[in-house]
């Protein structure tokens, strides 16, 4: 469909017409309009549309949504929208599953209008999630403007231009449900550490983060891991330092006292205790997998919030 000036009523009508047209084709008997939530993604115009589209498209299989993609750009007074649908046929099934998408392109000076247009597009009574990938929104200090579009907002602190812990903590304090893919990335290492530390009472833990982060600051994953461990092990000294490994994302090594070392590497982790070395498989999660995990939690994640509060305290 061609891009049009964006008015919520018109866009919803276009969607309706679009579905009627899809339903009147040969595939009419085998077409399911699926929607389990409204997912609104804010991205900057420079971001590779194909790559972003690929991530969101594969996400739709597990979380079929009314997808609203807002692409923000510099310049002035631009605001257009187009509607479309993506369909796929699960292997071995006759029925096509289809999700609807509204793509909004807007200049930053129209951000307030974007919000007034996107808000009415939400599918009623279903969760509304905002995925923030736009550094422009953060730079403009406009994070709070887009909050009313979602029951939950997901960011990735490890992305350049992402909101800082202070801003995320502010959202928590205001009662908003938030998610951070930098935290989600820790799920397998947290699971492994929880097993390894179950019967221990460690005195000191050192978390090494990769050197690539050392040039700038501590990796957000390391901060989260430190906070998570600290909230669970109140008497343990947990420190951070830069490591030398570059083949891992966010966490390089975790040293527990003198006798347990966990080295994170591509696809897994090695842990040494005494003279014994073992390997745990931890496949690197793709962005779609991380998002899928976060979209599965549309209520407050108390463990995450506890860790974030610890960082911002």
């Amino acid at each position, binding site marked *: 469909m061609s891009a049009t000036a964006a*008015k919520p009523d018109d866009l919803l009508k276009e969607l309706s017409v679009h*579905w*009627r047209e899809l339903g009147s084709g040969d595939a009419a008997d085998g077409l399911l309009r699926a929607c389990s939530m409204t997912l609104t993604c804010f991205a900057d115009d420079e971001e590779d549309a194909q790559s972003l589209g690929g991530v969101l498209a594969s996400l739709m299989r597990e979380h079929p949504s009314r997808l609203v993609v807002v692409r923000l750009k510099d310049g002035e007074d631009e605001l257009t929208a187009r509607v479309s649908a993506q369909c796929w046929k699960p292997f071995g099934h006759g029925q096509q599953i289809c999700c609807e998408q509204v793509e909004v392109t807007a200049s930053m000076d129209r951000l307030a*209008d*974007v919000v*007034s247009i996107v*808000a009415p597009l939400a599918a*009623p009574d*279903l969760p509304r999630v905002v995925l923030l990938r736009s550094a422009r929104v953060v730079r403009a200090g406009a994070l709070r403007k887009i909050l009313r579009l979602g029951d939950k907002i997901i960011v990735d602190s490890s992305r350049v231009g992402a909101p800082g812990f202070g801003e995320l903590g502010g959202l928590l304090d205001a009662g908003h449900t938030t998610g951070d893919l930098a935290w989600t990335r820790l799920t397998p290492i947290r699971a492994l550490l929880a097993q390894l530390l179950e019967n221990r009472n460690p005195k000191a833990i050192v978390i090494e983060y990769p050197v690539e982060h050392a040039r700038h600051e501590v990796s957000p994953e390391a901060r989260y891991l430190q906070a998570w461990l600290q909230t669970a092990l109140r008497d343990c000294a947990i420190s951070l330092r830069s490591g030398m490994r570059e083949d891992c994302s966010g966490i390089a090594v975790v040293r527990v006292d003198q006798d347990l070392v966990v080295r994170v590497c591509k696809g897994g982790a090695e842990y040494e205790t005494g003279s014994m070395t073992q390997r745990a498989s931890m496949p690197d999660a793709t962005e779609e997998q991380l998002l899928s995990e976060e979209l599965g939690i549309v209520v407050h994640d*108390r463990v995450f919030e506890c860790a974030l509060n610890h960082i911002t305290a």
Partner: protein
Amino acid sequence: MPALYRLAYEGRLAPGFAVIGISRTAMSDDEFRNRMHDSVAKFLEDSPFDEDLWRSFAQGLTYLAGDVGDAASYQKVSAALEKIAQERKTDGNVLFYLSTQPSQYAEIAEGLGKAGLAKGTGWRRIIIEKPFGHDLVSAQELDRRIVAHFEEEQIYRIDHYLGKETVQNIMAFRFGNGIFEPLWNRRYIDHVQITAAESIGVEGRGAYYQEAGALRDMIQNHLLQVMATIAMEPSATFSSDSVRDERSKLLRSVHTMKPEEVAENAVAGQYGPGRVGGQAVVGFRQEQGVNPESMTNTYAAATFLVDNWRWAGVPFYIRTGKYLPKRVSEIAIHFKSAPLAVFGQANEGEPMAPNLLILRIQPEEGISLKFVSKRPGAGMTLRPVSMDFNYGASFGERSPSAYETLLLDAIVGDATLYTRQDMVEASWRAVQPILDAWSAQKFPFSNYAAGTWGPEAADVMLARRGHVWRTP
């Protein structure tokens, strides 16, 4: 006229069907036909315009210039009707449709009556459109003057909301299925929300609108009728009087607010400047033709209670407004939550999402049922899901417009979807205490920005009973 043309297109009109257009403007029959041609071609929705059919349909269109206050006009109408009866074999059946200022209804009915046009060889019916008066007293006065010439059975008070497919479907849904009616009471239903939101402002009708306001324009008629359809008892038959008796009974059961109850159970709003759909819009008081200190409500919300065994204690929240974020009309039935939260709570301190039944009137007429379902995977995580029925998608055929339905009903003499005087008076009685209280009050307008869901006071009104407005 587009509705009549569409009925002709569907072959629902008798071959001799004829229309006499009457207004003060001097015009020939052909000029009238040309104007109607352009109007029908422009406003015909979801239908092709067939020039051949139009030529045939237009043969039945004639025009008379006349003034409603001039007795001679009615004599001209009488002569024209006699001529048409002979030429087109209409058997003297006549339907008068008053598409005029409401202030002229009584005068026209009297003119028709005095000219002997209220009775004839065939049936005679008269259609008037809301508003039926501007308060209880004026509604009674209007009726008194009309019934002096027309019997109640001849009077068709049109409320186009009742002609909408989904509103009619409420009855099919409730009384054609066995599973819902047992739940349709105070034991299982927590509250009901009826929303009629418009995303446009007064669109140049500011001068008219400031005399009416949202409460009179929408709630007193359309939305209370919808509420009556939702809440009425099953009728013994589907006859016109039987259904209307039940609607009327329900409206008479609506609790009449005491003056001191109005403040907590009704909220007036007026939009200020804002942004709607990416456009900057002016506030109501800045609209053309509107008093800059106008106290007109462009938003109204009210809590109605029904004093009967089925609904005692169940609030019916009704809201309507101009320049709300989207155009939507729907009824949300909020069921009570499960008595025991065996799966815990969605969030600490927050109850599990209750079941919701949504009856969408416009756009995308349909029905949705919301319930929670287990999210696939380990653990017992529940998520709200929605099961939807969409009229257009399920039947794949065009729904007639409300006016098509109602005009055809009037032609065949079925008044089921028309409002009876006792219903009109009962709904005025329900809103009269609010009108009285508001007329004596100065509001701090504007109190909501265009493009938002109305004044904060409306949220507070629901919060008093622990409820929140649903976002449609």
